[in-house]
């Protein structure tokens, strides 16, 4: 199957241009949260980690809703579809565009978090918890993105986004129940236990499978409607 690479590249660039300012603002807000985290005081730690989660979740929802839901609602989608693209080209451009618009702030904040943990008096074992937390948001993001590409209903999309994102709370509580994960978090050494590694592996695997399946599903379609 032939992909119209130049147009895909332009469409990704277009989405990047449309959202770069807002995404930069999310990164700035995230860096503010990281500063709080870096103070390594209990109140600042809780406030900072909460703010960090809010910022990453907000950036994820922003990227999905602006590139897909708003485009559908404001009828700019019709304009994009009139350009020389096939449904597969369009899907690929949306997937890659989203991985870029969300991926950049996501990676910046993930790296920032790790740097803050490692370079401050915070126990280095927190790296495991932080990575699993980002892993969950990545998974929730991938599922929400797939739903947004598949389902037109605004209600279901909101449900998928909010539902999957707030699951981060029970997820953290569940992690607290697993002794082999909970134990090393307070230590200054980074010791990946088997359950922690399995959870992270599952998060990454499911994310990739969901996105590839979405691309395959749309690639089979000959037309948009």
């Amino acid at each position, binding site marked *: 199957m032939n992909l119209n690479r130049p*147009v895909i590249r332009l469409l990704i660039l277009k989405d990047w241009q449309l959202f770069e300012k807002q995404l930069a603002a999310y990164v700035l807000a995230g860096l503010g949260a990281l500063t709080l985290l870096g103070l390594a005081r209990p109140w600042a730690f809780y406030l900072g980690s909460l703010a960090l989660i809010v910022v990453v979740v907000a950036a994820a929802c922003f990227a999905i809703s602006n590139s897909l839901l708003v485009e559908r609602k404001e009828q700019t989608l019709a304009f994009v579809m*009139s350009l*020389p693209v096939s449904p597969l080209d369009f899907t690929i451009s949306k997937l890659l565009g989203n991985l870029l618009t969300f991926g950049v702030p996501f990676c910046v904040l993930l790296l920032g978090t790790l740097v803050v943990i490692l370079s401050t008096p915070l126990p280095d074992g927190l790296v495991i918890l932080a990575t699993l937390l980002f892993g969950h948001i990545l998974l929730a993001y991938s599922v929400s993105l797939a739903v947004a590409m598949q389902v037109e209903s605004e209600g279901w999309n909101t449900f998928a986004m909010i539902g999957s994102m707030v699951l981060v709370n029970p997820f953290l509580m569940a992690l607290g129940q697993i002794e082999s994960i909970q134990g090393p978090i307070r230590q200054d050494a980074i010791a990946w236990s088997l359950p922690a590694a399995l959870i992270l592996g599952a998060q990454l695997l499911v994310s990739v499978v969901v996105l590839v399946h979405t691309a395959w599903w749309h690639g089979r379609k000959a037309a948009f409607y």
Partner: protein
Amino acid sequence: MTAAFAVSGLCKRYPEFALQDVDLSLPEGQVMGLVGVNGAGKTTLLRLLTGLAAPDAGSIEVLGHRLPEAQVAAKRDIGFASEDMRLYRGRSLDWHIELVRRIYPAWDHAYASELIRRFDLRPAQPLGGYSHGQRVKALLLLCLSRRPRLLLLDEPTTGLDPVARAEVLETLADVLRDEGRSVLFSSHNTHDVERLADSIAFLHQGRLVAHADKERFLDNWRRVLCLGGGAAEVSGWPELAQVRAAGSQVEIKVRAWSEDLPQRLSAAGLSVQRVDPMALEDIFVTAVRTGGAA
């Protein structure tokens, strides 16, 4: 001669609507006007012709490309603008031009600049501040400046003020200078179709009820005013779309005019007072009200 597009046996079913068995083609260099009430299937047909929708049955060929399979190649040569298509409100016309120009190698920069002047658009202003008419003109500019071989326009003049409408129509008329370029446009405004179209396609309830060159189409119809009492007698004649009596005056709308009709009418007791050509608008309304047979 190659056809700008040709469809045959075209069917597309939606839960509440179906386009049924449409055969239609447009020779290159011609303008076709698509008329029909809301929900007649105009938008569905245009979506099929751009490859956005796949037909349930039948074949579609646009500029030599089979759709929807070859929609990417076809869309390189198609300029499509529909009423429900919007541009990015937060971005300027210049930004859109830059995006579209990089996709279409045939982009005509001089023509785009001329259209900006003619349409009186401010290219650096975010489109959120444009009026409806300005947005329509911006969209048309993006379509026209890429010099497409086929223009597909869904309601290009709907909602425009008279001045903007005149500008848009004059610009469309300019396209006629090039005999390699073809236009299909749908419109509620039958005056626009009557003026610009070489042929007329008339959709009603998902079916193509008439398709003819415009002059022949208009020539078939007449409004005949008669005096006399034979209205009931002639009302069943197949060539008469509508017979209405007001006292002794009888108005007849003829869908298949022939020169001997006045004689036959007077033989039936109706003396013909005057015979007038009909505007497309009048034909359209008459045809829809009398069940769509045109």
